[in-house]
């Protein structure tokens, strides 16, 4: 049985018309005066875009900040890998963009499963993010006149995406990291690198701190604070193969969940349509090819499943440009979820291409004819090189092969408008929370959300909580609860070491990923989910009996780190399937094949499912407790997404 306090979901949406809510919040929140800020300690776990920007800003405001990352340096966080860009409603191109349009596109893109008030705030602060990032030296792409350049991304009808070559995430993360580094140099932020948070400690009904494992020495330690922010990224690696960095994991979020933080919409996962297909069974990681390629590439498969000619020899009549055929108005730019499912159907139908018949073509031949090879090289040269390095094939001469892969997770820790979880004093930011993207995220909107949370939301909302604790002592690391949880975790890791089975953690992760991908991937149904719900616990039981971890626990041991992370993926995987099972509709990234229209499109059910599902930990991973937060739309009306 769980000993956590019972959960109530109060979204704390401020009063007033949608467009005024955020300003109303700011006008009415409780503040902590500058001299008192240093009396508060705030722990930030994770130093990606969300964490680094929060640490920099809170440190600068005067709070005592301690930032934790399992990486050797904050600059390694997975945010660094984002390629395409970041959205903002600047309307610099004068093409009709506005805060309202970005808000509406995000709600619609999320298939009407996100909270209006949060999304509106996101669109509002998007403009400040660009100002902030430019001021701190992010070298965004520019026009010859010296002004900022924009592109249209992921099928948006306006050009609102800011980018820095194909390295936008890198440049934004370096920007946020440098701001945090400045605060570290000034002594306002203390950085704990190669430290993994393994648990959350709550005392008297609120979050009191965290327990960490030092990856270098294997030592466990407690860290008390007035508030804790989890900015620990997404759980896309539950699928084992994904475009996420190898170390991305759910441990921080999951351990917080086990201590009372509700977990929302875990079944909302984004499968990105343009990744390089798997080459063999032992592959460890998949690579994303930027979505921008779809602006010029045409996607097709051979009409005949038994086709044996090479791509160039297949005449147009024997090709199926299926996206252009099914979605004539969006064509190759159809949204991610729609394109991914279409590719899966082609491959399932035997029309896949490549040695394993597990991909579809993304063909630049027409674009090269029209624009010349030089133009294509200028636009995509580095992506083409990357593709060639990985596959050994030259995409100027033969089409790329692509296939969908796990990329992003919209689900995450449930937070209210102030980004607080169901545990008072515990916050979640960036991809780790569930907040803004509903059932499907638009391209270039994750970077925007991470920076919005860290730079412009948390610094305001956190004082609203802290103010009440001024001059009241908080429990320190010698409190019994810290000691107890520290020792529970010491035992947990000792246990991984001592099982003495026959297989390393990677084996279990790969097998688990296969189950989740097969039954809770792009296409889900009741029978499959039931199967997953019985296979996952069986595999988890085997993990607990047959795991083998070699090496010691007093110096770095990557096998042991992995064991802890895989253990948590098992329980999360169960919850993903459970969530997918109860959501008897298709929406965004969640496609239940029982719920589709006659022509195979997602069939949403707004009458019964216009809510967030937030799960409470019951003490038994197989019996989570379901809660619902109704989504009330004041501003927008439900619409069926159509890209035909």
């Amino acid at each position: 049985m769980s000993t956590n306090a019972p959960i109530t979901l109060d979204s704390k949406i401020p009063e007033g018309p949608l467009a005024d809510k955020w300003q109303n919040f700011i006008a009415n929140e409780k503040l902590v005066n500058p001299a008192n800020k240093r009396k508060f300690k705030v722990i930030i776990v994770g130093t990606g875009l969300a964490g680094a920007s929060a640490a920099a800003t809170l440190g600068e405001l005067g709070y005592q900040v301690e930032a934790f990352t399992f990486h050797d340096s904050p600059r390694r966080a997975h945010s660094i890998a984002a390629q395409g860009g970041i959205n903002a409603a600047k309307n610099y191109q004068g093409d009709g963009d506005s805060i309202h349009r970005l808000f509406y596109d995000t709600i619609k893109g999320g298939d009407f499963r996100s909270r209006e008030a949060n999304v509106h705030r996101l669109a509002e602060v998007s403009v400040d993010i660009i100002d902030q990032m430019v001021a701190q030296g992010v070298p965004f792409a520019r026009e010859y006149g010296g002004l900022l350049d924009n592109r249209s991304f992921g099928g948006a009808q306006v050009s609102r995406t800011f980018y820095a070559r194909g390295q936008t995430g890198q440049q934004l993360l370096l920007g946020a990291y440098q701001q945090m580094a400045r605060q570290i140099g000034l002594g306002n932020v203390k950085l704990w690198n190669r430290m993994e948070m393994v648990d959350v400690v709550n005392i008297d009904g609120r979050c009191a701190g965290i327990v960490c494992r030092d990856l270098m020495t294997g030592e466990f330690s407690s860290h008390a604070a007035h508030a804790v922010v989890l900015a620990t990224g997404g759980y896309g690696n539950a699928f084992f193969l994904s475009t996420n960095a190898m170390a991305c994991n759910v441990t921080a979020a999951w351990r917080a969940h086990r201590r009372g933080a509700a977990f929302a919409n875990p079944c909302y996962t984004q499968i990105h349509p343009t990744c390089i297909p798997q080459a063999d069974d032992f592959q460890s990681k998949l690579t994303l090819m930027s979505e921008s390629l779809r602006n010029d590439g045409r996607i097709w498969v051979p009409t005949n499943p038994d086709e044996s000619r090479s791509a160039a020899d297949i005449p147009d009549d024997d090709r199926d440009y299926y996206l252009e055929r099914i979605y004539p108005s969006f064509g190759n730019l159809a949204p991610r979820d729609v394109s991914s499912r279409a590719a899966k159907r082609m491959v399932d139908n035997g029309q896949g291409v490549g040695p394993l018949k597990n991909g579809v073509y993304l063909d630049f031949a027409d674009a090269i004819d029209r624009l010349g090879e030089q133009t294509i090289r200028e636009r995509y040269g580095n992506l083409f090189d990357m593709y060639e390095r990985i596959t050994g094939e030259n995409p100027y001469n033969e089409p790329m092969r692509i296939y969908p892969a796990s990329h992003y997770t919209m689900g995450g820790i449930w937070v209210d408008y102030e980004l607080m979880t169901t545990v008072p004093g515990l916050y979640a930011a960036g991809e780790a929370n569930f907040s803004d993207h509903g059932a499907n995220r638009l391209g270039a909107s994750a970077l925007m959300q991470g920076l919005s949370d860290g730079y412009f939301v948390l610094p305001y909302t956190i004082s609203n909580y802290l103010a009440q604790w001024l001059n009241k002592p908080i429990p320190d690391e010698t409190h019994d609860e810290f000691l107890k949880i520290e020792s529970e975790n010491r035992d947990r890791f000792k246990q991984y070491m001592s099982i003495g089975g026959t297989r390393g953690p990677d084996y279990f992760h790969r097998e688990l990923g296969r189950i989740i991908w097969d039954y809770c991937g792009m296409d889900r149904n009741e029978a499959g989910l039931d199967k997953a719900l019985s296979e996952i616990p069986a595999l988890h039981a085997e993990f607990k009996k047959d795991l083998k971890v070699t090496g010691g626990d007093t110096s770095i041991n990557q096998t042991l780190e992995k064991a802890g992370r895989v253990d948590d993926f098992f329980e999360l995987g169960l919850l993903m399937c459970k969530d997918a099972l109860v959501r008897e509709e298709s929406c965004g990234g969640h496609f239940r094949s029982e719920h589709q229209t006659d022509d195979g499109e997602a069939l949403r059910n707004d009458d019964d499912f216009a809510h967030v599902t937030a799960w409470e930990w019951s003490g038994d991973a197989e019996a989570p407790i379901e809660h619902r937060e109704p989504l009330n739309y004041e501003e927008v009306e439900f619409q069926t997404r159509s890209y035909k």
Partner: protein
Amino acid sequence: MSVLTNITLKVWRQDGPDGQGRFESHQVPEISEEASLLEMLDIVNERLVEEGREAIVFDHDCREGICGTCSLMIDGQAHGPTKGAATCQVHMRVFSSGDEIVLEPWRADGFPLVKDLMVDRSAFDRIVEAGGFITSPTGGAPDANLIPIPKPVSDASMDAAACIGCGACVAACPNGAASLFTSAKLAHLNLLPQGQSEREKRTEAMVEMMDDHFGSCTNHGECESACPKEISIDNIALMNSDYLTSKFKNRKKLAR
């Protein structure tokens, strides 16, 4: 799909910073040429664990050449034989059946060894903390298009900003100098209009922190050829000239 056979790995193993290091040989009877070098290490490690032996410790994360976490001397070359690529982007197809591949950690005084192939590169963070930023408190920024930046300037800044902080430059340098890294960080900010107010202060602080941790540059140029992002050595010239200017100005101020 072709398969390479009979690969011998000679891997550096060392229990800790003070331990005695040694090479250990591992046979890889078969590996797909589609696999990356690090995927081969994953496979070797999985086998080692199953055999009850300790896995080889190595740093890695994104596996797409952007996070700068991976770090290996492959056959004596930082990041191995593929030009303009990081270790994680080296694929087995660049090797041949029967090859022996030697894997060693970065070796430099500024990067103490942690274990096996992993080193501690946190001195890079110290250099950035010393001055690698533009002071711009959150919320106070003017509209982003207020200062137009000529495209060539912004492009040159971006060329330098592409540095992934992997440390190959230090590992390749006979003196273990960190000039390419530091100068890239400086050029990124010093070339931009926003970076001008702190240009001198920044340059002095970062160069001096660099000197505290790393060897001195004697223009070998090995750093540029090892750099997975092909960062230009011209940045070092810019750094040196900025450093002289700042020192000179400061001396004048002191003399006054």
